[in-house]
């Protein structure tokens, strides 16, 4: 435990020095990469790794791929930084955490300019962070822009006008043809207010700033309750969309005719619905004081990060830049249809023709960036509000009206955390 560590440091310093010195021909560079292996991502990685090796024939790259999903990469990197990969893919809501714990360092200015020049502004925002007493810097390379959700529905059942308002949808939905929104999940539960109200997160004090307990917002949610609660289980169902996927199909009687979900489910639902598949932005609803409220959502990106203590940081940065450049994003979109973050690719006709991605684009003006708006303390209180919307008061001890529930929510998310 002591000897290997001292040897390790010795080797590390030698390698660091060698990185600064001349790279001789025939040198081997070891690079460890983490990314999800499902949904064809691994094949995309292997193709791009091959292309990277071709681009640098004088060096032999030994690249190891670890199947670590985007949600887990940050946790694993924080758990043991020494064994973390040099290049890893993660979701942007972890960016604040990774930067504050020193896992990610700011990109060198040249690379930052490359990112700012070629990627969508919202993705660059998702990849940026402002450390205390510093200016905003870019900390990772944007990979895809389609973290977010929209409305997916059965064209044969709803017309385009129906899905513009929640009331229209509820009018047509009934016990045998239901609309699904997972109100028990903090990700979806407050979509009624994400556009209408204010919500932001301070990663230093680790508290939120929000006005969700204002009268206007309480009225808005009351309006939502008045639409949803009478139809509970008789037109509206609050479950995880992954559990009811097969209920979309004709074979199952179209038990589900609309759902709020993200791009990751679009392929599966398309399989179930076939030609009846349609996607659009989230609907509006009427609040209790008769104003029209647009349902909002979270938006986010997938990012590629380079470990701050990487022993081959120059090559790691080069590789990360390579797998997120325009050609790579084009290939990625063609292979697995994920929303690209590159401006050119995103504007191409093929991308615009994808219904899921087009719907996300339409929803984007009404969404807030997840990484900048919510922290860890958001999810459980948000889920409680969602449960209140669908089921009413949880018990006699808890909040009895939506105003009280929102007050409790705001108290929870603005509470200073225990030190």
């Amino acid at each position: 435990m002591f000897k290997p560590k001292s040897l390790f440091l010795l080797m590390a310093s030698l390698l660091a020095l060698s990185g600064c010195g001349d790279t001789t021909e025939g040198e081997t560079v070891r690079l460890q990469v983490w990314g999800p292996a499902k949904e064809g991502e691994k094949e995309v990685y292997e193709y791009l790794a091959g292309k990277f090796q071709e681009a640098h024939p004088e060096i032999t790259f030994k690249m190891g791929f670890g199947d670590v999903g985007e949600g887990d990469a940050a946790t694993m990197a924080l758990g043991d930084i020494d064994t973390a990969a040099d290049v890893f893919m993660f979701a942007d809501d972890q960016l604040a955490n990774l930067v504050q714990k020193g896992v990610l360092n700011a990109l060198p200015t040249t690379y930052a300019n490359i990112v700012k020049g070629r990627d969508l502004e919202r993705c660059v925002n998702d990849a940026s962070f402002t450390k205390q007493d510093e200016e905003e810097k870019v900390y990772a390379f944007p990979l895809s822009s389609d973290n977010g959700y929209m409305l997916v529905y059965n064209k044969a059942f709803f017309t385009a006008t129906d899905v513009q308002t929640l009331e229209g949808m509820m009018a047509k939905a009934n016990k045998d043809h239901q609309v699904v929104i997972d109100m028990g999940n903090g990700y979806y539960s407050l979509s009624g207010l994400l556009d209408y109200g204010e919500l932001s997160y301070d990663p230093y004090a680790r508290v939120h700033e929000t006005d969700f307990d204002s009268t206007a917002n309480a009225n808005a949610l009351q309006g939502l309750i008045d639409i949803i609660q009478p139809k509970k289980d008789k037109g509206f169902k609050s479950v995880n969309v992954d559990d009811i996927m097969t209920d979309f199909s004709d074979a199952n009687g179209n038990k589900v005719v609309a759902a709020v979900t993200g791009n990751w489910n679009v392929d599966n639902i398309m399989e179930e619905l076939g030609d009846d598949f349609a996607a659009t932005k989230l609907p509006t609803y009427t609040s209790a004081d008769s104003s029209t409220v647009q349902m909002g959502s979270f938006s986010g990106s997938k990012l590629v990060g380079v470990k701050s203590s990487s022993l081959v940081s120059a090559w790691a940065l080069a590789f990360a830049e390579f797998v997120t450049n325009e050609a790579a994003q084009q290939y990625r979109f063609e292979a697995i249809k994920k929303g690209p973050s590159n401006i050119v690719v995103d504007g191409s006709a093929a991308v615009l023709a994808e219904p899921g991605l087009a719907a996300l684009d339409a929803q984007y003006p009404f969404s807030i960036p997840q990484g900048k708006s919510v922290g860890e303390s958001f999810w459980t209180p948000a889920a409680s509000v969602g449960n209140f919307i669908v089921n009413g008061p949880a018990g006699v001890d808890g909040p009895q009206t939506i105003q009280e529930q929102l007050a409790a929510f705001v108290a929870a998310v603005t509470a200073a955390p225990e030190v």
Partner: protein
Amino acid sequence: MNEKKTTPPLMFPGQDKKDFYLSTGTGHYSHLMSSFSNFVIGLVIAISMGGFFIARLLHLIFTSTSVDASSQSAYWLLIIATLVLSAAALAGGVLAAVSSSSQRAKVNREEVRDEVLIKCSRYQAIVGLVNVILTSVLLALEIAAIIILSASTSGAVITPSFWWIILLAVSVLASIGYLIISLGHIKAVKNGREYYLAKKVEPISMVESIVIGIGSGAKNLGVGLFNFIMLFIKAFINLFVALYKLIVKVAIAVAKFAKKFTMTFIKGTYRTKLSYFFMGLGHALMGRPVKTILYLILEAGYWLFMFLPQGGFYWLSKFDNLGDQASKIVYECSIIGMPINICPVEDQIEVTVFMDNSMLITLFAVATILLTVAFFALYWISIRGVVKAEETYVEALKKHESTDDGTTNSATQEKPKFKSPLPTFKNEVNELLNSRFHLTTLSIPAITITVFTLVPLVFMILLAFTNFNQQNGPPNTLFTWVGLQTFAQLFTSVGGSSFSKAFGDILGWTFIWAFFATFSNYILGLILAMMINRKGIKLKKMWRTIFVITIAVPQFVTLLLMSQLLYKYGPLNETLLRLGWISEYIDFLTVPLNAKIAVILVNVWVGVPYTMLITSGILMNIPDDLYESARIDGAGRFTQFVKITMPYMLFVTGPYLITQFIGNINNFNVIFFLTGGGPSANLPGVEYGKTDILVTWLYRLTVGGAQQEYAIGSALGIFIFLISAFITLSLYAKTSAATQEGDFA
């Protein structure tokens, strides 16, 4: 029947009616006692119900919930009714007591005794009847109120409270018992003693014995509760006394050892003194160099380890504040092949080099300390070895030097060379493989236990005295010692949203859960075993096998299946809905109370086979003649159960029950796989669920979520250990297994 019983029992389960009625019928004292008990019942009802309703009233006044008129009036009705009825019960008790005592003087006179007894018994019967009516009406009112108020649209303002319903139900039964006894008094005296002196002896019926049992049970419960509390207080005090004694013992032992250590050096020969500095050198000076070489290699190895960079002293030096600098930045060039000194600023990469890692410092420092302790033990063993060996060697040498040991060669007048009497290396190895083989084989487990159990254990315990959490932890921040602050955080309340509220809730539920889980499994397993064991049941083995089959399915598979079954949109709800038995989905696992009940019931499913098997075996061992004689004496089935079966069972399974109780305090699987900790409690700042027990909360705090509160988790773990150890030790000493070992031997 001429002697007065000085301490008449309140109720005598198992006794024949004749004796019972006669003994209680003649003693005036017993009238007083039964009146007193009636008084107590009335008092309890008055205080508890009155106080409880007043508390609800205050709650209603001080919370701003809007309550509609019908609810309010129902509420008021309930309060008034309770107060009136409680007052009546109280008055009745007082009246009965007074009337009994006023008749006291007359009872002693034989000629009016019967009249007086009948009169008193009539009073008591009336009071008993009134009591029955009172408590039944109260119970009915409570249930009705709950039904009415929960159906009102403004939401229920009164929580269905099971405890009060149980209390009321028990009061009802006790009152019925009292009534029966009073009637019995009248009957006994009226029909004359001759009736009962005749041959006909009726055993007490099942119902009567249950009621009588409940009455005496209530009395025993009170006495038992008091003893229980005293037990814990005594055990708590004993703990500190024992701790103090332990510390004194340890201090004395350390002082003694230090003295021995120095005395051995001072009194030792030059060999011993040298061995203090060069481990085992004495052996080489006595002709056994191999042993010395081995010891010296060990010593060299240890000092090498301590002094090397990143070795023992490095970690120990950082141990006092757990690191100074977590990381530093070095710069590299992102242009491949360009050295940093000519690299333009916009191409420079900030590379972090991580230096001090508090967690690793703690771990390696602990390992170093334990290694040092182990080395010191070896060191002391080597010195002792030299001292002992020296004794034999010096003696043999003396013998050799003296001229008449019979080995001198008469021809050359030379002595043979002195052979050291100490065992050679080969001999020692032989010994270790034969006569002292136990040492060889035990060394491996000793090492592995130290490395894999002791080091992590000490490490985790030390974490409780730091502030290790997400903000103060690797990789780029350090944590440090904070003493007892983490424990203070668990127990005190800071700013309303805190760990202490969560801790209090969870602790309460943990005990309730452990009690009900153990109790329900035990009783139901026992009942099941008794039912199968009854004479007249055919195919006993088949029934047992059927109930035991559930063991074949692994516990967590059962639990996962159950959680799927009880899911709100799962198969059970769907089936009930389609059959038309319910009109809306039932929230089994998402409403706190339902989740708690569901968890206990599913645990019964999982655990009853085990208790059934255990109790089956024990039941079959109880000798039948005990039951026979009880039946002859007139004991009912329930009395037999309470007086014969239960004491025997408790004697044999007492320690088992304690183990199960402690095990259920830490029963992670059932809670976690069924509800995952349960519906969230929605407490701002601290995340926990309503069915969380201490261990599942610990999991949630550390690795289950994103909280990473490792220091608090460690403090919680230590606390759980303290509770478990405390309960085990104090309860075990009190079980009949420990105190009545002679009775059932």
